[in-house]
């Protein structure tokens, strides 16, 4: 078949070009493995993806299944299924663990490791279908787990949080551990309408993108003013202090006695002043956990940012809320509907109703501009009550 020969040859030319350049190079890496580079090259030449999904294969120890990746051109290159490997919180991998991953990749896969997937799993690609069972058994015997596929909780990801960052208002890595201690079944068994993701950030800077690419995002924050270290502050010098004062979008900061004072009721925890203060301003002491819902990237209308659901005080409340959200999601989402799609379809008010929560201003970006709504008799009475006893000026 001269077609195949040409496709492979042209593909190789293209691949050779991609191999160039100073940025870390995935082709140079792939060429050190048994990954079917020619198949990839041909797809570039043909400008057409040459894999099809083979669905998920369920094996003992992996109820959510394992991702089958089937070549549509076996004449050029083979299928390359992938297992997703669960790693510790914060993506810290000990050297022993990494050794094991490499050993498994060499033994069962093509000698390639995907470290890291964009959802923060390690993946081992290229395991032939017939070897998957053995792989799983041996892998689990080594004390490791695979997962994060199917209509279940996908890998929970967190920023590094308290482990390495002074901005952290919650120990994100510990919270992830707690999540799995409590809810591992959610992650293990594919019982949801569609996948779910939880991401956790230690502060509003949201390094974990929990407000963007997670069905449920948890963010550590605080209430009131941030903590100011007066002596540290003075050391910064006038110019820097002025820059800090001017950085506050709500004008909550003012100069006082050579340092600054912050009006707590006006602080919106935007982190701007902290970022400029070189440690002299730190997160406030009254911790709050923000819970966001509904972020996702392929909504029917395009990407959906998450919405703030509530602010709570304790990790326990966070866990209870997650449980409640899961309940509402499984009961009400249509098949292959993510949480964000559900909320988009029924509206935030509808979602809050299902959550048995009263709407609050924090649930909204902006308020309504039209007056086409009904008002119940109970509401009319309540409002009347609230505003009775007004004064007059005549």
């Amino acid at each position, binding site marked *: 078949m001269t077609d195949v020969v040409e496709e492979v040859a042209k593909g190789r030319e293209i691949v050779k070009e*991609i191999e160039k*350049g100073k940025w*870390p*190079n*995935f082709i140079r*890496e792939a060429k050190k493995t048994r990954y079917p580079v020619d198949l*990839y090259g041909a797809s*570039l030449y043909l*400008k*057409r993806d040459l*894999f*099809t999904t083979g669905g998920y294969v369920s094996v003992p120890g992996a109820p959510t299944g394992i991702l089958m*990746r089937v070549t549509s051109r076996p004449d050029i290159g083979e299928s390359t299924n*992938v297992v997703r490997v*669960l*790693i*510790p919180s*914060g*993506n*810290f*991998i*000990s*050297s022993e663990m*990494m050794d094991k991953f*490499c050993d498994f*990749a060499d033994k069962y896969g093509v*000698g*390639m*490791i995907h470290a*890291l*997937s964009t959802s*923060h799993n390690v993946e081992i690609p290229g395991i032939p279908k017939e070897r998957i069972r053995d792989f799983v058994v041996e892998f689990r015997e080594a004390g490791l787990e695979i*997962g994060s596929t199917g209509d279940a909780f996908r890998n929970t*990801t967190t*920023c590094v949080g308290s482990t*390495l*960052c002074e901005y952290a208002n919650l120990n994100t*890595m510990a919270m*992830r*551990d707690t999540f*799995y201690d409590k809810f591992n079944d959610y992650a293990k068994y594919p019982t949801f309408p569609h996948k779910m993701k939880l991401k956790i950030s230690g502060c509003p800077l*949201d390094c*974990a*993108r*929990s*407000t963007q*690419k997670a069905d449920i*995002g948890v963010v550590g*924050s605080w209430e009131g003013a941030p903590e100011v270290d007066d002596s540290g502050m003075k050391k910064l010098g006038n110019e820097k202090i002025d820059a800090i004062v001017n950085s506050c979008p709500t004008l909550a900061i003012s100069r006082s006695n050579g340092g600054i004072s912050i009006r707590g009721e006006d602080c*919106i925890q*935007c982190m701007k002043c902290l970022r400029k203060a*070189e440690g002299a301003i730190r997160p406030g002491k009254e911790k709050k956990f*923000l819970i966001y819902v509904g972020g996702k990237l*392929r909504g*029917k209308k*395009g*990407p959906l*940012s*998450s919405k703030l659901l509530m602010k709570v005080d304790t990790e326990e409340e966070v866990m209870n809320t997650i449980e409640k959200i899961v309940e509402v999601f499984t009961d009400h989402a249509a098949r*292959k509907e993510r949480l964000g799609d559900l909320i988009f379809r029924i509206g935030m008010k509808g979602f809050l109703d299902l959550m048995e929560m009263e709407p609050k201003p924090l649930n909204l970006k902006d308020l309504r501009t039209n007056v086409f709504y009904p008002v119940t008799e109970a509401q009319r009475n309540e409002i009347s009550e609230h505003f009775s006893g007004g004064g007059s000026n005549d």
Partner: protein
Amino acid sequence: MIEGPPRPYLNYIPEYLKESVGKWVTHKLEEPGLIEHVDSGGRKVYTVKAAATPNGRYSTDTMRKINDLARKYAGGSMRFTQALNMEFVVSDLAKARELKSELKKLGFPVGGWKEHLWSLTSCAGYFHCALAATDAPSVIQRLGNELSEYFDEKELPAKLTVAASGCPSSCGGSFLTDISINGIHTEIPVVTENVKNCDLQGTAFTCPVGAIQLKTLQNGEKTIEIRENLCIGCGLCVGACGGIIFKTPEKTDGHAISIGGKASASRYGTTLGRIVVPFLPNEPPHYEKTVKAVRTIVDTWIRDARKGERIADWVDRIGWEKFFEKTGLPFYPQSMDYLDIRAITTLRDGSGR
């Protein structure tokens, strides 16, 4: 073994880090890719951030070498950042600098943080996925080569993140980064003969908008019909069933560029990338046009932005009108905001052909 991921996390971080957990008070950037962290007791550690390959794939050969460095310099542990870069926590500055040069020797630049390029990420693309409209990894490879100097040497007005995804699923995190490459199918798929080999009900379920209808033919055979007015061209059915195909992906597949994505859990909230180039053809290996478009955006931003302005902030200040003026990018109707009744009821403008 415990169920789920290995934990508690304390077992996996370097020993010398444990005491400082929750006690950090400040950090400062020593040099690109190297941060000094100080805890309340004055203890210090140094983090070193090295660039990842575009799609995070490594040979075990290379990964073992990296792992050796982790063993030698970083307390027997390494981590991957949110943006998939490698991060090592080192207990003193001299060792951190040594590690830095070792990493460089292995071909991994150390950099990022503050006014630099922080990360370049991609999804699997043609390399491993069934759904790709664009090969995200090779695009990012080119952009990495092109922008690498901003990772470690040159300064930018502010943080810069770049991501590419092969299709609208956006596994690569496109839409969320300062510059995003989003693979797209610009036509909708067609159903072929071979559809009979697929799990029809299963395929119908994959469709996010319910555009797939099961039908029974005269001869009793079951088949599938795609309702053109509903289909958004996402390509999920194509990935799920070999009998549904894009007719001429080599012409009609490509990628869009969106800019200004940025996360934040403050009241101002997260911003999503907005489409500034609605289509670019797939032209590996060099993707000249894509590179040119990205360079144009980055160069204009460098020239025009104030210190500290991310791309989203810059556009917020100058407005879209000036953005197109200053960059000289052509404006296409596809960039128009569709947050109106029409977008929601018809989902897609035109029949999609």
